[in-house]
């Protein structure tokens, strides 16, 4: 898929394959927002890594920091109010946070691209979709208007928008929700990025359309060996497409694991609670398991483990000591003091 002659990689093209450096490595990232009510610590030491061709699902509820992490990787946080006091985001071995704004905007779109949840508000309503897709080629590649439009039609075909040639001059409101999301995807893959971040790409869509979009993403990923970060709260979508999962709670990663391990046996009480609260066929007529209480207030985080007020297995030291991310195996870790007991089912 990749055409090296037009690829203007800012970074050495194959630095990603040197040694064991993954495509993307987020390391101990902190993001905070200065607000009138105080400092909101949205991300408190998040680390994850992703290789080319891999799909990482970041799972979490609203306020868990999953989208803020993605925006920090993409470099689209408004600073201020946002601040990144600590951490590294290494893309092919280079720390993005050390780059200048002009260097970052070279990477943005060309090497790292993003799809947003609500395609209607992410697209500009007063320009045609063709103009918006073609803009990627005009701005980043300096193509002529005509050539960029031809490219736009090609891309619309590739994301399977019917009658692309006729529809290239339509406006976003003339498309259905699923088609708009396809246009967003067309824009994001326009420059063959190495990393695609999809922030709740199907949350606003119906299930049959969701299935179409997820299939399209998987296909594009196979074709170009992209790394995909899928941000979602849907445990079903994650089980369908992810290779590995990072579960976030209160701005931290609480569990990191390959997808099969986590669904077989969770190593953190929060993950376990989420999985147990899915309605299952054999549970019909019984009460669903519910995690009690509410997600934490980011302005007033609980001491110790952020999950302790809701945790059924809480012990005294959970209230005082912040649990580190314990390594369970080479690929798996859990931020629970009692991960062994949670895994064995002997906790509490």
């Amino acid at each position, binding site marked *: 898929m990749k055409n090296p002659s037009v690829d203007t990689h800012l970074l050495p093209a194959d630095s990603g394959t040197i040694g064991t450096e993954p495509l993307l490595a987020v390391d101990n990232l902190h993001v905070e927002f200065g607000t009138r009510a105080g400092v909101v610590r949205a991300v408190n030491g998040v680390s994850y890594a992703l290789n080319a061709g891999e799909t990482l699902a970041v799972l979490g509820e609203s306020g868990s920091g999953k989208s803020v992490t993605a925006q920090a990787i993409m470099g689209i946080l408004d600073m201020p109010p946002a601040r990144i006091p600590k951490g590294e985001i290494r893309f092919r071995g280079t720390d993005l946070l050390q780059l200048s704004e002009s260097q970052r905007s070279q990477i943005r779109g060309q090497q790292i691209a993003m799809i947003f949840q609500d395609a209607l508000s992410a697209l500009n309503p007063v320009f045609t979709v063709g103009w918006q897709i073609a803009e990627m080629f005009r701005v980043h590649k300096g193509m002529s208007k005509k050539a960029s439009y031809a490219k736009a039609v090609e891309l619309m075909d590739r994301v399977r928008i019917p009658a692309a040639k006729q529809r290239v001059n339509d406006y976003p409101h003339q498309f259905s929700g699923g*088609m708009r999301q396809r246009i967003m995807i067309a824009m994001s893959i326009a420059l063959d990025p190495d990393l695609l971040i999809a922030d709740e790409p199907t949350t606003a869509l119906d299930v049959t359309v969701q299935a179409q979009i997820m299939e399209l993403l998987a296909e594009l990923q196979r074709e170009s060996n992209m790394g995909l970060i899928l941000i979602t709260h849907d445990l079903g979508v994650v089980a369908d497409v992810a290779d590995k999962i990072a579960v976030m709670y209160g701005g931290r990663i609480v569990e990191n694991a390959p997808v099969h391990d986590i669904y077989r046996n969770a190593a953190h009480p929060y993950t376990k609670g989420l999985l147990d609260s899915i*309605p299952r066929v054999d549970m019909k007529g019984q009460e669903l398991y519910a*995690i009690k209480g509410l*997600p934490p207030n980011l302005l007033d985080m609980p001491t110790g483990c952020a999950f302790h007020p809701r945790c059924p297995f809480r012990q005294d030291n959970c209230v005082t000591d912040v649990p580190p991310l314990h390594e369970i195996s080479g690929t798996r870790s859990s931020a629970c003091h009692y991960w062994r007991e949670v895994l064995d089912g002997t906790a509490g």
Partner: protein
Amino acid sequence: MAPQGEPILEVRDLVKHFPLTQGIVLKRQVGAIKAVDGVSFDLHRGETLGVVGESGCGKSTLAKLLMALEKPTSGSVKVNGEMVDVHKGSNLKKFRRNIQMVMQDPYTSLNPRMTVGDIIGEPYEIHTEVAPKGDRRRKVQELLEVVGLNPDHINRYPHQFSGGQRQRIGIARGLALQPEIIVCDEPVSALDVSIQAQVINLLERLQNEFGLAYIFIAHDLSVVRHISDRVAVMYLGKIVEIGKDTEIYDRPSHPYTQALLSAVPVPDPEGRETRERIILQGDPPSPANPPSGCRFRTRCWKAQEICAVEEPLLQIRPGTDHESACHFAEVHDVVHAS
């Protein structure tokens, strides 16, 4: 809960067309959005009927028609054997005491300038016979306790509560007049995953306690399966399949139901490579101009000539044990197939 005795709600051939007009001074009708186009079903005491379908299939319009918030173009709704006359105020008032609604979005369905006590107590202002004035505050506090909120928070405002708590306030308001039927329009879809289970458990507990009948509208099929006794699948304003939960989920016979069920992601990665997936092509057609004959035929892989000519009726067909609106209805278990 097995349906027993007379149905508490009878819906027959309910139709709602929204006119499409052209011209500013002289409006003429140039067509109609056929939002709900001939829907019939019964609901029994203490029963839950799940309604599933994609956006635009008419499930929310159906909810509004049941609440008499919209006047039907034709068709009838009977509650306890009595016809609901939407043109007669006294009749409507009596009817509305018996059927209440829980809305989707707890952030916009509660007035931010009213206290929780005023919101839950407002139904008593209209139906003064349910609670005498001096008794209302105590009743509201009772309701708060029933839905699991602190009765001392009666003077707080909606913004002081979280999403799940606000949905509880909405449920308490729905319970205030002791209705027999509650229409829940996507009651958990705006809530966080860890909170959804809490609200579903509450709805089930209230049903057992007060013998409520629910119309449960949602797009999350696993939630619908958990709570429903019977399920209706809608497509473009019509019910395409209706039956007991096991009949719909284990033995679906309409191609649309099968596609819908197979599209739902299963929260278990085991065997995900071999799972059967029916990916439908395209989007649902516009309800302003639905296809002739069977409305699903434009996306259906079984479609033949007869489907374009003759509209399939919702009836029990050879080889199935429940009603299905497909000429070629055939039981096919998509969920458990591998």
